[in-house]
């Protein structure tokens, strides 16, 4: 059976962590142009795919293209986004830069103490090793440090909020952008 499963959430482009799937979902649009676009998109994605996908689905409103390939040549699995290192930014596709993610479950604090100024704010430039936040876990205050140079584009979590492992905390842009 050629079952392929769509990624469960949101609008995705690119490959999921298992390296086996690629989905684009759009909504609305007129039939003929859309069909052409869909076809072009599918063909394009195929051409750009770093290795052969197991399945491909392109959907645009009522128009859909789905292809699956037999699973013979096992694709080189791309590993799950790991640890506190910067990971490619999540959707939308247009977003650039990287995110700094939580290395542990805990409570996120932007400041060294209540009422103090935040470690960093939007627009600030950071250097590797610079502390940018604290995560409190089991009464321990664990520093969150930048691992790459960059400029803080967005703080993604509110001060005092609980975060889970791997949750994006900051969006960073390259320094030269």
């Amino acid at each position, binding site marked *: 059976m050629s079952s392929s499963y769509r990624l469960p959430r949101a609008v995705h482009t690119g490959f999921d962590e298992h390296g086996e799937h690629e989905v684009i979902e759009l909504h609305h649009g007129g039939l003929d142009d859309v069909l052409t676009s869909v076809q072009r998109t599918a063909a394009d994605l195929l051409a750009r795919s770093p290795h052969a996908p197991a399945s491909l689905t392109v959907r645009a409103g009522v128009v859909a293209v789905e292809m699956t390939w037999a699973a013979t040549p096992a694709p080189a699995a791309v590993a799950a*986004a790991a640890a506190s290192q910067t990971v490619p930014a999540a959707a939308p596709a247009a977003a650039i830069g990287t995110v700094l993610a939580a290395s542990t479950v*805990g*409570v996120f604090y932007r400041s060294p103490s209540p009422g103090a100024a935040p470690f960093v704010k939007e627009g600030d430039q950071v250097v590797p090793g610079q502390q940018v936040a604290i995560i409190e876990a*089991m009464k321990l205050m664990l520093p969150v440090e930048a691992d790459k140079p960059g400029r803080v584009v967005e703080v993604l979590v509110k001060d005092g909020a*609980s975060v*889970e*492992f*791997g949750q994006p905390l900051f969006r960073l842009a390259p320094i030269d952008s």
Partner: protein
Amino acid sequence: MFGKILIANRGEIAVRVLRACRELGIRTVAVHSTEDKDSAVVHLADQAVQIGPAPSRQSYLNAAAIVEAARATGAEAVHPGYGFLSENPDFAEVCEANGLTFIGPPPDVIATLGDKTAARAAMTAAGLPLLPGSVEPLNDAEGAARLADEIGYPVIIKAAAGGGGRGMSIVEDPVEFSRSYQQTRATAQTLFGDGRVYVERYLPSARHVEIQVLCDGYGNAVHLGERDCSVQRRHQKLVEETPAPGLPAELTARMGEAAVRGALATGYLGAGTFEFIVDTENNFYFMEVNCRIQVEHPVTEAVTGVDLITEQIRIAAGERLRLKQEDIRRGGVAIECRVNVEDPDRNFVPTPGRLEKFVPPGGPFVRVDTHGFAGYKVPAAYDSLLAKVIVWAPDREGAIRRMRRALAEFTIEGPGVHTTREFLDRVLRDPLFVEAKHDTGLVARILGD
């Protein structure tokens, strides 16, 4: 009763615990590694928290992350399942220290029973029969050799901190004793960070039989009969059943009473399993206590009608046992088969991968506990248990036939995925198994090892 429970486990047991919570009207928090974020329990739970990357040490063994997840979600209790942190007294203590109820025995009871020599001492005090051997760990080779001579050969040298068949050596002859003693100590030190060992009589053709107990916090305890887990491959159980075929009911009743006595003497709380060894003259000896729910608990549920996970939760919530010993009536025969994602033709190597088809068996008196579903990707990071198939029938012959029917209709397909399904069928139709004349050597014999 709790309003919310955090399930500190994964796989089928996490789903099992979630089901009990739902029936009790308790909300659930699943914790999961990055690898398990599309797992069944995550889909089913009211909330899910990602606690770490794929390696267990950073996720399912990460006590700090689990306690933080409980705090963040407002969970009041933690169910540890089996394996992982389920028999870790430090984790139980960290839970209590953070205001969380650990669903299991108190930390000091886990610590005592987890130490083989301490457990032996406690059970001796409680009047349980033990195999001739040392109660205290033996620290000098000469004294140990003298004791072995007294016990009579063959003897077995076991790591005090060991378990699961690791850290033990059988010594057939006095001349081998000294070398085996040193070797076992060294292995124990490496494996468990604890070189203490003890010595006891080894019974080559004995049977391993375990007794399920339930104890509340008010001095009430019951036993729910025995389980036979003789079908093992390298100390990994493949098939479990109850009642233990061929054991007189009078004997298992006495074992049950002994288990209850031992549990009450040590202040046990919740569900636990007492392992005994039974010799050819039907003498039984205490071996160890498993301070957790067991993988094979469903066979006991099937013949008693008691939901053991629900009882665990009720007891942890401070309720009194509603069952008295006379309420526990057992009927029929139950068998469990573990369907692992392994290739029996390649030495049972795990074969993780995407399940393209997954159709579990159904129909009368068949239960399936699984986290699998069509489309699920079995991760490589964890153990290979994918599903437990449990059947009930009025008699053992009917149960075997029913199990073979159920396994035959279990469809599991995916690229590169193999399972133990067909191998289990070989076990079930083996004449020795059919006649219940098998012992723990059955699987090796079938495999021609």
